[in-house]
């Protein structure tokens, strides 16, 4: 009788000890969990603070430098022509770098066309200056062509749009253009400066503007397509959706 009760007492003690150990372990693991939560909160807070202060890819004053670089990465460029030079179809965009509608196109429609038609080599995209907003659009356009001479034309155009100021407000200064060129990755800024101020490039901007007028375009951006399926440049006006441009490219091919 007494043997049995002492065994029961021992079992009860062992069970109590095991429960105690279990409680200790549970407490310790919960403490580890709480510490992890604090670390995670601190980590996220640090990431957000660092990221809100970080320069977007090299220049503190420019928006979307990295985004533009990523969007155009791996696509050949020559002058202001984006895409495989041997692509059968050419989509011409007549734009004014100061034009807000062109900016909207650059952000919302052109990326889809680049991904579906240009990246695949089906079409190339040829940007031509059609200056309508103000006189400042002429040096801006020449600066884009000069960036194109260093293989950074489209980076310049896209970055300009992403950082565009209010129409004809005087923001297109030498400093602004230089900042865009640096952000676009133009290596030789001195050569770019010489080129953009040259009579030849300024004349080219005026020549493409005259071409747009000959094509009866009345606003920017205006598009034209040329390929085996068209007779010369076929004007498209300003189609409001990427799918319309994609269809036109398909039909021209």
């Amino acid at each position, binding site marked *: 009788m007494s043997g049995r009760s002492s065994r029961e007492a021992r079992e009860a003690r062992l069970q109590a000890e095991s429960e105690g150990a279990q409680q200790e372990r549970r407490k310790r693991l*919960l403490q580890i969990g709480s510490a992890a939560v604090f670390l995670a909160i601190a980590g*996220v807070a640090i990431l*957000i603070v660092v*990221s809100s202060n970080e320069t977007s*890819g090299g220049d503190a004053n420019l928006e979307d430098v990295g985004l533009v670089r990523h969007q155009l990465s791996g696509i050949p460029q020559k002058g202001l022509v984006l895409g495989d030079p041997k692509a059968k179809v050419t989509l011409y965009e007549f734009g004014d770098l100061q034009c807000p509608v062109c900016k909207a196109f650059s952000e919302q429609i052109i*990326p889809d066309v680049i*991904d579906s038609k240009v990246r695949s080599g089906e079409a190339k995209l040829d940007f031509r200056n059609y200056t309508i907003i103000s006189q400042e659009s002429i040096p801006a356009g020449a600066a884009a062509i000069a960036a194109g001479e260093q293989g950074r034309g489209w980076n310049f155009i896209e970055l300009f749009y992403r950082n565009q100021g209010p129409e004809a407000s005087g923001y297109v200064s030498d400093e602004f253009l230089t900042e865009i060129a640096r952000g676009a990755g133009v290596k030789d800024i001195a050569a770019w400066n010489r080129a953009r101020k040259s009579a030849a490039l300024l004349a080219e901007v005026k020549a493409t503007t005259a071409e747009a007028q000959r094509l009866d375009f009345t606003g920017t951006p205006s598009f034209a397509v040329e390929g085996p399926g068209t007779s010369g440049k076929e004007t498209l006006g300003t189609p409001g959706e990427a799918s319309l441009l994609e269809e036109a490219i398909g039909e021209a091919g």
Partner: protein
Amino acid sequence: MAEDRSITVPAMRLPAEGTLRMIATFVAAFGIGVATYITIADSGGGAPVCLAGGSGCQTVASSTYSHLFGINIAVFGIVGYVLLLAAALLRGDAARMVGFGVSLVGFGYSVYLTYLELFKIEAICQWCVASAALMTILFCLNALRMIGYVGKPA
């Protein structure tokens, strides 16, 4: 009366651990699907297709934030969801702690990515939002599992 030293959550009845694990299994499997889709869509040079149209997915996928150390962050998402699936399928404290730890990191990173989408990239990708929602659910499930059952017999 002996003092109750056990750590309990007062006035709250937790679901059974088995229920939490079962739901976590489904959510993690779904998460693997979403992260895999984003990875495949991106690896083809494109971007996930936004269900309601728009170019949010395109913008987010083409932003510099979509890659970490040159690897698409959706790949890290797949790894995270696979670990969470394993943690949901396994018993014991190790699985409880790993599940909690991984979902905590995943949830924290999702908060950061959502911040980036809203304030830095200024575009919303539904697939990323879907993943963030799944990760939030997994974090809640794993937190409940850990708070309620860690240190207790499996």
